[in-house]
Protein backbone atom coordinates (compact mmCIF):
# COMPACT_ATOMS: atom_id res chain seq x y z
CA UNK A 1 0.00 0.00 0.00
CA UNK A 2 1.86 3.04 -1.25
CA UNK A 3 0.12 6.28 -0.45
CA UNK A 4 3.07 8.50 0.27
CA UNK A 5 4.11 10.80 -2.55
CA UNK A 6 7.13 13.06 -2.58
CA UNK A 7 5.50 16.45 -2.89
CA UNK A 8 2.49 18.45 -4.03
CA UNK A 9 3.49 18.44 -7.71
CA UNK A 10 3.40 14.65 -7.77
CA UNK A 11 0.12 14.56 -5.82
CA UNK A 12 -1.74 16.79 -8.27
CA UNK A 13 -0.07 15.62 -11.49
CA UNK A 14 -3.18 13.96 -12.97
CA UNK A 15 -5.64 16.72 -12.12
CA UNK A 16 -6.96 17.70 -15.52
CA UNK A 17 -8.84 20.52 -17.15
CA UNK A 18 -12.56 20.57 -16.40
CA UNK A 19 -12.38 18.46 -13.23
CA UNK A 20 -14.29 19.10 -10.00
CA UNK A 21 -12.22 19.57 -6.84
CA UNK A 22 -13.11 19.79 -3.18
CA UNK A 23 -10.70 22.06 -1.30
CA UNK A 24 -10.68 22.01 2.49
CA UNK A 25 -10.42 25.02 4.79
CA UNK A 26 -12.52 27.77 6.35
CA UNK A 27 -11.34 31.17 5.22
CA UNK A 28 -7.56 30.72 5.13
CA UNK A 29 -7.61 28.35 8.11
CA UNK A 30 -6.66 24.78 7.28
CA UNK A 31 -6.30 25.26 3.52
CA UNK A 32 -4.06 22.94 1.47
CA UNK A 33 -1.43 25.61 0.75
CA UNK A 34 1.07 23.29 -0.94
CA UNK A 35 -1.42 21.76 -3.36
CA UNK A 36 -2.91 25.14 -4.25
CA UNK A 37 0.61 26.35 -5.13
CA UNK A 38 1.17 23.22 -7.20
CA UNK A 39 -2.11 23.74 -9.07
CA UNK A 40 -1.15 27.35 -9.76
CA UNK A 41 2.24 26.18 -11.06
CA UNK A 42 0.61 23.49 -13.17
CA UNK A 43 -1.82 26.05 -14.60
CA UNK A 44 -4.67 23.57 -15.12
CA UNK A 45 -7.85 25.46 -16.06
CA UNK A 46 -11.65 25.23 -16.18
CA UNK A 47 -11.84 23.78 -12.69
CA UNK A 48 -14.97 23.60 -10.59
CA UNK A 49 -13.99 24.20 -6.98
CA UNK A 50 -16.14 23.18 -4.02
CA UNK A 51 -14.79 25.19 -1.11
CA UNK A 52 -16.48 27.11 1.69
CA UNK A 53 -14.64 30.30 0.69
CA UNK A 54 -12.58 31.51 -2.25
CA UNK A 55 -9.48 32.73 -0.46
CA UNK A 56 -8.30 36.34 -0.55
CA UNK A 57 -6.83 38.21 -3.50
CA UNK A 58 -3.28 36.97 -3.05
CA UNK A 59 -3.64 33.77 -1.07
CA UNK A 60 -5.53 30.50 -1.10
CA UNK A 61 -7.91 29.90 -3.98
CA UNK A 62 -7.47 33.60 -4.79
CA UNK A 63 -4.16 32.60 -6.41
CA UNK A 64 -6.01 30.24 -8.76
CA UNK A 65 -8.60 32.91 -9.53
CA UNK A 66 -5.84 35.35 -10.48
CA UNK A 67 -4.72 32.91 -13.17
CA UNK A 68 -8.30 32.33 -14.28
CA UNK A 69 -8.07 28.61 -13.52
CA UNK A 70 -11.51 28.42 -11.94
CA UNK A 71 -14.63 28.11 -14.07
CA UNK A 72 -17.06 27.69 -11.22
CA UNK A 73 -17.00 28.14 -7.44
CA UNK A 74 -19.42 26.32 -5.17
CA UNK A 75 -19.19 28.11 -1.81
CA UNK A 76 -21.17 29.50 1.10
CA UNK A 77 -19.35 32.80 1.55
CA UNK A 78 -17.05 34.61 -0.84
CA UNK A 79 -16.88 38.10 0.59
CA UNK A 80 -13.14 38.62 0.99
CA UNK A 81 -11.88 38.70 -2.55
CA UNK A 82 -11.92 41.65 -4.99
CA UNK A 83 -10.66 39.64 -7.97
CA UNK A 84 -13.45 37.16 -7.34
CA UNK A 85 -15.98 39.99 -7.39
CA UNK A 86 -14.55 41.35 -10.64
CA UNK A 87 -14.72 37.97 -12.40
CA UNK A 88 -18.21 37.33 -11.09
CA UNK A 89 -19.57 40.68 -12.28
CA UNK A 90 -17.86 40.33 -15.68
CA UNK A 91 -19.34 36.87 -16.14
CA UNK A 92 -15.97 35.09 -16.37
CA UNK A 93 -16.71 33.10 -13.23
CA UNK A 94 -19.78 31.08 -12.39
CA UNK A 95 -20.76 30.93 -8.72
CA UNK A 96 -23.19 28.74 -6.85
CA UNK A 97 -23.82 29.91 -3.30
CA UNK A 98 -25.23 27.33 -0.93
CA UNK A 99 -25.78 27.27 2.83
CA UNK A 100 -22.69 26.29 4.78
CA UNK A 101 -24.28 23.35 6.57
CA UNK A 102 -25.67 22.08 3.28
CA UNK A 103 -22.20 22.35 1.73
CA UNK A 104 -20.59 20.36 4.54
CA UNK A 105 -23.32 17.74 4.63
CA UNK A 106 -23.32 17.21 0.86
CA UNK A 107 -19.60 16.40 1.17
CA UNK A 108 -20.29 14.11 4.11
CA UNK A 109 -23.08 12.33 2.26
CA UNK A 110 -20.65 11.44 -0.53
CA UNK A 111 -18.32 9.87 2.03
CA UNK A 112 -21.17 8.02 3.73
CA UNK A 113 -22.42 6.56 0.45
CA UNK A 114 -25.72 8.42 0.63
CA UNK A 115 -27.02 9.99 -2.58
CA UNK A 116 -28.89 12.84 -0.94
CA UNK A 117 -29.75 14.58 2.31
CA UNK A 118 -32.81 16.46 3.52
CA UNK A 119 -32.24 19.82 5.19
CA UNK A 120 -34.52 22.67 6.25
CA UNK A 121 -31.85 25.24 5.30
CA UNK A 122 -33.09 27.39 2.43
CA UNK A 123 -36.75 26.37 2.51
CA UNK A 124 -38.81 29.34 1.30
CA UNK A 125 -35.75 31.07 -0.21
CA UNK A 126 -34.21 31.18 -3.67
CA UNK A 127 -31.96 28.27 -2.64
CA UNK A 128 -35.04 26.04 -2.83
CA UNK A 129 -35.85 26.91 -6.44
CA UNK A 130 -36.16 23.78 -8.56
CA UNK A 131 -35.50 21.41 -5.66
CA UNK A 132 -37.68 18.64 -4.35
CA UNK A 133 -39.34 19.40 -1.02
CA UNK A 134 -40.43 16.66 1.35
CA UNK A 135 -42.43 17.02 4.54
CA UNK A 136 -41.32 15.12 7.64
CA UNK A 137 -43.25 15.54 10.91
CA UNK A 138 -44.97 18.62 9.51
CA UNK A 139 -41.77 20.46 8.54
CA UNK A 140 -40.48 21.08 5.00
CA UNK A 141 -37.03 19.87 3.97
CA UNK A 142 -35.07 20.35 0.74
CA UNK A 143 -33.52 17.37 -0.95
CA UNK A 144 -29.87 18.17 -1.63
CA UNK A 145 -27.64 15.79 -3.58
CA UNK A 146 -24.30 14.41 -2.46
CA UNK A 147 -21.41 16.10 -4.23
CA UNK A 148 -19.38 14.28 -6.82
CA UNK A 149 -15.78 15.42 -6.93
CA UNK A 150 -12.92 13.99 -8.97
CA UNK A 151 -10.43 15.01 -6.30
CA UNK A 152 -10.61 16.15 -2.70
CA UNK A 153 -7.59 18.10 -1.47
CA UNK A 154 -7.26 18.49 2.27
CA UNK A 155 -4.81 19.69 4.86
CA UNK A 156 -4.23 17.95 8.19
CA UNK A 157 -1.92 18.53 11.12
CA UNK A 158 -0.53 15.00 11.34
CA UNK A 159 -0.83 12.00 9.12
CA UNK A 160 0.74 8.57 8.85
CA UNK A 161 1.91 6.47 5.93
CA UNK A 162 -1.44 4.63 5.94
CA UNK A 163 -3.23 7.91 5.26
CA UNK A 164 -4.75 8.32 8.71
CA UNK A 165 -5.25 12.00 9.56
CA UNK A 166 -5.48 14.20 12.65
CA UNK A 167 -6.44 17.86 12.41
CA UNK A 168 -5.72 20.71 14.77
CA UNK A 169 -8.18 23.15 16.41
CA UNK A 170 -10.55 24.80 13.97
CA UNK A 171 -8.27 23.99 11.03
CA UNK A 172 -10.32 20.80 10.93
CA UNK A 173 -13.49 22.49 9.52
CA UNK A 174 -14.36 21.08 6.08
CA UNK A 175 -11.24 18.91 5.74
CA UNK A 176 -12.59 15.62 7.19
CA UNK A 177 -15.85 15.69 5.22
CA UNK A 178 -14.08 16.59 2.01
CA UNK A 179 -11.46 13.91 2.61
CA UNK A 180 -14.37 11.46 2.73
CA UNK A 181 -16.13 12.92 -0.26
CA UNK A 182 -13.58 12.84 -3.08
CA UNK A 183 -13.15 10.02 -5.59
CA UNK A 184 -9.41 10.49 -5.08
CA UNK A 185 -8.29 12.24 -1.91
CA UNK A 186 -4.98 14.01 -1.52
CA UNK A 187 -3.87 14.96 2.00
CA UNK A 188 -1.03 17.30 2.80
CA UNK A 189 0.13 17.24 6.40
CA UNK A 190 2.45 19.28 8.57
CA UNK A 191 3.99 16.14 9.99
CA UNK A 192 4.05 12.74 8.31
CA UNK A 193 4.86 9.84 10.64
CA UNK A 194 5.30 6.08 10.16
CA UNK A 195 2.26 3.85 10.60
CA UNK A 196 1.86 2.99 14.26
CA UNK A 197 2.86 6.34 15.69
CA UNK A 198 -0.65 7.80 15.79
CA UNK A 199 -3.08 6.57 18.42
CA UNK A 200 -5.93 4.79 16.57
CA UNK A 201 -8.41 6.31 19.00
CA UNK A 202 -7.37 9.81 18.03
CA UNK A 203 -7.70 9.48 14.23
CA UNK A 204 -10.17 11.92 12.68
CA UNK A 205 -10.03 10.61 9.10
CA UNK A 206 -9.34 6.90 8.64
CA UNK A 207 -6.80 6.20 5.93
CA UNK A 208 -9.26 4.29 3.75
CA UNK A 209 -10.48 7.67 2.52
CA UNK A 210 -7.00 8.96 1.69
CA UNK A 211 -5.21 7.92 -1.50
CA UNK A 212 -2.16 10.18 -1.51
CA UNK A 213 -0.35 11.82 1.36
CA UNK A 214 2.75 13.96 1.67
CA UNK A 215 4.47 16.17 4.17
CA UNK A 216 3.95 19.78 3.15
CA UNK A 217 6.48 22.54 3.62
CA UNK A 218 6.79 26.28 4.15
CA UNK A 219 3.34 26.73 5.62
CA UNK A 220 2.49 30.40 5.75
CA UNK A 221 -0.80 29.97 7.68
CA UNK A 222 -1.91 33.49 7.01
CA UNK A 223 -4.35 35.02 9.50
CA UNK A 224 -7.30 36.86 7.97
CA UNK A 225 -8.49 38.81 11.01
CA UNK A 226 -5.81 39.18 13.65
CA UNK A 227 -7.68 40.08 16.82
CA UNK A 228 -6.11 40.33 20.26
CA UNK A 229 -7.13 41.44 23.73
CA UNK A 230 -5.30 43.23 26.43
CA UNK A 231 -4.86 41.72 29.88
CA UNK A 232 -8.01 41.38 31.98
CA UNK A 233 -10.42 42.09 29.16
CA UNK A 234 -12.70 39.75 27.31
CA UNK A 235 -13.85 40.01 23.68
Amino acid at each position, binding site marked *: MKKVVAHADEAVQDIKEGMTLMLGG*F*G*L*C*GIPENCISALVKKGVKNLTCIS*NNAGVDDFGIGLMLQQKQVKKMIS*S*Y*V*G*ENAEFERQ*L*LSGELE*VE*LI*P*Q*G*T*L*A*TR*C*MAAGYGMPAIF*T*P*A*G*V*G*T*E*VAEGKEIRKFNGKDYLMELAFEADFAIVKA*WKGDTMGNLI*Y*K*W*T*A*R*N*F*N*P*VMAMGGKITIAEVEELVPAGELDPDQI*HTPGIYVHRIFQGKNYE*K*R*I*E*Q*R*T*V*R*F*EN*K*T*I
Partner: protein
Amino acid sequence: MLDKNGIAKRIAKEVKDGMYVNLGIGIPTLVANYIPDGISVVLQSENGLLGMGPFPLEGEEDADLINAGKQTITTLPGSATFDSALSFGMIRAGKVDLTILGAMEVSENGDIANWKIPGKMVKGMGGAMDLVASAKNIIVAMQQVNKHGESKLLKSCTLPLTGVNCVKKIVTELGVYEVKDGAFHLLERAPGVSLEDIKKATEGKLVINSDVKEMEL
Protein backbone atom coordinates in the same frame (compact mmCIF):
# COMPACT_ATOMS: atom_id res chain seq x y z
CA MET B 1 -31.86 55.44 21.57
CA LEU B 2 -29.33 52.62 21.84
CA ASP B 3 -25.95 52.39 20.15
CA LYS B 4 -24.53 49.04 19.00
CA ASN B 5 -23.17 48.25 22.44
CA GLY B 6 -26.51 49.12 23.99
CA ILE B 7 -28.28 46.66 21.69
CA ALA B 8 -25.71 44.00 22.61
CA LYS B 9 -26.12 44.77 26.31
CA ARG B 10 -29.90 44.38 26.11
CA ILE B 11 -29.65 41.11 24.19
CA ALA B 12 -27.22 39.75 26.78
CA LYS B 13 -30.11 39.80 29.27
CA GLU B 14 -31.79 37.10 27.15
CA VAL B 15 -28.86 34.75 27.67
CA LYS B 16 -29.56 32.32 30.50
CA ASP B 17 -27.40 30.00 32.54
CA GLY B 18 -26.60 26.70 30.81
CA MET B 19 -27.37 27.86 27.28
CA TYR B 20 -25.43 26.94 24.15
CA VAL B 21 -25.40 30.11 22.05
CA ASN B 22 -24.36 30.94 18.50
CA LEU B 23 -23.41 34.57 17.94
CA GLY B 24 -23.40 35.99 14.42
CA ILE B 25 -20.98 38.55 13.03
CA GLY B 26 -21.32 42.24 13.95
CA ILE B 27 -23.47 43.41 16.90
CA PRO B 28 -24.15 39.78 18.00
CA THR B 29 -20.43 39.27 18.61
CA LEU B 30 -20.51 42.16 21.09
CA VAL B 31 -23.10 40.31 23.18
CA ALA B 32 -20.29 38.16 24.61
CA ASN B 33 -18.95 41.26 26.39
CA TYR B 34 -22.14 41.72 28.40
CA ILE B 35 -23.07 38.21 29.52
CA PRO B 36 -23.70 38.67 33.25
CA ASP B 37 -21.21 37.33 35.77
CA GLY B 38 -22.19 34.09 37.41
CA ILE B 39 -23.87 32.77 34.28
CA SER B 40 -22.29 29.86 32.50
CA VAL B 41 -22.91 29.73 28.75
CA VAL B 42 -21.09 27.95 25.94
CA LEU B 43 -20.52 29.87 22.72
CA GLN B 44 -20.71 27.84 19.53
CA SER B 45 -18.69 28.92 16.53
CA GLU B 46 -20.02 27.18 13.42
CA ASN B 47 -16.59 26.60 11.92
CA GLY B 48 -16.18 23.90 14.53
CA LEU B 49 -15.83 24.98 18.14
CA LEU B 50 -17.86 24.80 21.33
CA GLY B 51 -16.52 26.91 24.15
CA MET B 52 -15.18 29.94 22.33
CA GLY B 53 -12.97 32.03 24.56
CA PRO B 54 -11.82 35.64 24.30
CA PHE B 55 -9.37 36.98 21.75
CA PRO B 56 -5.80 35.84 22.46
CA LEU B 57 -3.20 38.05 24.07
CA GLU B 58 -0.88 39.68 21.59
CA GLY B 59 1.73 37.15 20.48
CA GLU B 60 -0.49 34.18 21.33
CA GLU B 61 -2.57 34.22 18.13
CA ASP B 62 -2.83 30.83 16.44
CA ALA B 63 -3.78 30.69 12.74
CA ASP B 64 -5.37 27.29 13.39
CA LEU B 65 -7.82 28.71 15.94
CA ILE B 66 -10.37 31.15 14.59
CA ASN B 67 -14.07 31.89 14.89
CA ALA B 68 -16.67 32.03 12.13
CA GLY B 69 -15.76 35.68 11.54
CA LYS B 70 -12.18 34.49 10.84
CA GLN B 71 -10.93 36.28 13.94
CA THR B 72 -8.23 34.74 16.09
CA ILE B 73 -9.73 33.44 19.33
CA THR B 74 -8.94 31.09 22.22
CA THR B 75 -10.47 28.00 23.74
CA LEU B 76 -11.67 27.64 27.33
CA PRO B 77 -11.47 24.74 29.77
CA GLY B 78 -14.02 22.24 28.44
CA SER B 79 -13.91 23.39 24.83
CA ALA B 80 -14.45 20.91 21.99
CA THR B 81 -13.52 21.11 18.32
CA PHE B 82 -15.19 19.25 15.45
CA ASP B 83 -15.76 19.32 11.72
CA SER B 84 -18.20 21.48 9.77
CA ALA B 85 -20.75 18.72 9.13
CA LEU B 86 -20.95 17.90 12.84
CA SER B 87 -21.16 21.59 13.65
CA PHE B 88 -24.22 22.03 11.46
CA GLY B 89 -25.52 18.68 12.64
CA MET B 90 -25.81 20.02 16.19
CA ILE B 91 -27.40 23.20 14.83
CA ARG B 92 -29.90 21.29 12.66
CA ALA B 93 -30.76 18.93 15.50
CA GLY B 94 -31.77 21.88 17.67
CA LYS B 95 -29.01 21.44 20.24
CA VAL B 96 -28.03 25.11 20.10
CA ASP B 97 -30.43 26.93 22.42
CA LEU B 98 -30.14 30.46 21.13
CA THR B 99 -29.03 32.05 17.89
CA ILE B 100 -28.33 35.77 17.77
CA LEU B 101 -27.79 37.29 14.36
CA GLY B 102 -28.02 40.49 12.38
CA ALA B 103 -30.56 41.33 9.68
CA MET B 104 -31.18 43.77 6.87
CA GLU B 105 -34.97 43.27 7.03
CA VAL B 106 -37.49 41.34 9.13
CA SER B 107 -41.16 40.94 8.26
CA GLU B 108 -44.16 40.89 10.59
CA ASN B 109 -44.49 37.11 10.16
CA GLY B 110 -40.86 36.53 11.19
CA ASP B 111 -39.19 36.22 7.78
CA ILE B 112 -35.60 37.42 7.73
CA ALA B 113 -33.39 38.78 4.93
CA ASN B 114 -29.71 39.24 5.66
CA TRP B 115 -27.55 37.77 2.91
CA LYS B 116 -28.02 39.39 -0.44
CA ILE B 117 -28.72 42.73 -2.09
CA PRO B 118 -29.48 42.00 -5.75
CA GLY B 119 -27.43 44.07 -8.18
CA LYS B 120 -24.78 44.74 -5.56
CA MET B 121 -22.02 42.39 -4.47
CA VAL B 122 -23.31 39.08 -3.27
CA LYS B 123 -21.14 37.61 -0.55
CA GLY B 124 -23.17 34.54 0.30
CA MET B 125 -25.25 33.27 3.17
CA GLY B 126 -22.52 31.43 5.08
CA GLY B 127 -24.23 29.50 7.87
CA ALA B 128 -27.16 31.89 8.30
CA MET B 129 -29.72 29.83 6.36
CA ASP B 130 -28.87 26.69 8.32
CA LEU B 131 -29.06 28.57 11.61
CA VAL B 132 -32.40 30.27 11.03
CA ALA B 133 -33.99 27.11 9.64
CA SER B 134 -33.23 25.08 12.74
CA ALA B 135 -32.63 27.29 15.78
CA LYS B 136 -35.07 26.89 18.63
CA ASN B 137 -34.87 30.56 19.47
CA ILE B 138 -33.66 33.37 17.23
CA ILE B 139 -33.03 36.91 18.38
CA VAL B 140 -32.21 39.49 15.74
CA ALA B 141 -29.94 42.45 16.48
CA MET B 142 -30.45 45.23 13.97
CA GLN B 143 -30.91 48.89 13.24
CA GLN B 144 -34.62 49.58 12.86
CA VAL B 145 -34.26 52.22 10.13
CA ASN B 146 -31.80 52.38 7.25
CA LYS B 147 -29.65 55.38 6.43
CA HIS B 148 -32.50 56.87 4.38
CA GLY B 149 -34.76 56.72 7.43
CA GLU B 150 -36.83 53.83 6.08
CA SER B 151 -38.14 51.10 8.34
CA LYS B 152 -36.55 47.65 8.22
CA LEU B 153 -39.40 46.07 10.22
CA LEU B 154 -41.67 45.41 7.27
CA LYS B 155 -44.99 43.99 6.21
CA SER B 156 -43.00 41.70 3.92
CA CYS B 157 -39.29 41.60 3.11
CA THR B 158 -38.15 43.17 -0.15
CA LEU B 159 -34.72 41.48 -0.21
CA PRO B 160 -34.08 37.79 -0.93
CA LEU B 161 -35.00 35.77 2.15
CA THR B 162 -32.65 33.90 4.44
CA GLY B 163 -35.46 32.07 6.21
CA VAL B 164 -39.21 32.18 6.69
CA ASN B 165 -41.33 32.55 9.79
CA CYS B 166 -38.40 32.05 12.16
CA VAL B 167 -37.53 35.26 14.04
CA LYS B 168 -38.91 35.29 17.58
CA LYS B 169 -37.48 38.49 19.02
CA ILE B 170 -35.84 41.66 17.74
CA VAL B 171 -33.72 44.21 19.58
CA THR B 172 -33.12 47.50 17.77
CA GLU B 173 -31.86 50.96 18.70
CA LEU B 174 -35.49 51.85 19.48
CA GLY B 175 -36.98 48.88 21.26
CA VAL B 176 -37.51 45.19 21.91
CA TYR B 177 -40.16 43.35 19.90
CA GLU B 178 -41.67 39.92 20.03
CA VAL B 179 -42.70 38.59 16.62
CA LYS B 180 -45.91 36.56 16.82
CA ASP B 181 -49.34 36.29 15.22
CA GLY B 182 -48.21 38.30 12.20
CA ALA B 183 -47.16 41.43 14.10
CA PHE B 184 -44.31 43.14 15.93
CA HIS B 185 -45.33 43.32 19.59
CA LEU B 186 -43.45 46.07 21.37
CA LEU B 187 -42.15 44.77 24.70
CA GLU B 188 -39.85 47.60 25.76
CA ARG B 189 -38.77 50.94 24.38
CA ALA B 190 -35.20 52.16 24.47
CA PRO B 191 -34.31 55.00 26.87
CA GLY B 192 -35.54 58.34 25.58
CA VAL B 193 -37.54 56.86 22.72
CA SER B 194 -41.23 57.72 22.38
CA LEU B 195 -44.00 55.50 21.11
CA GLU B 196 -44.37 57.96 18.22
CA ASP B 197 -40.73 57.39 17.24
CA ILE B 198 -41.37 53.66 17.24
CA LYS B 199 -44.57 53.89 15.22
CA LYS B 200 -42.79 56.02 12.61
CA ALA B 201 -39.97 53.49 12.36
CA THR B 202 -42.18 50.41 11.96
CA GLU B 203 -43.75 49.70 8.57
CA GLY B 204 -45.19 46.30 9.47
CA LYS B 205 -48.07 45.70 11.85
CA LEU B 206 -47.18 47.00 15.30
CA VAL B 207 -48.94 46.04 18.51
CA ILE B 208 -48.38 48.28 21.52
CA ASN B 209 -49.83 47.26 24.85
CA SER B 210 -50.65 49.99 27.34
CA ASP B 211 -47.97 48.92 29.80
CA VAL B 212 -44.82 49.17 27.65
CA LYS B 213 -41.90 50.16 29.85
CA GLU B 214 -38.59 51.77 29.14
CA MET B 215 -35.91 49.09 29.08
CA GLU B 216 -33.45 48.68 31.93
CA LEU B 217 -29.85 48.05 31.00
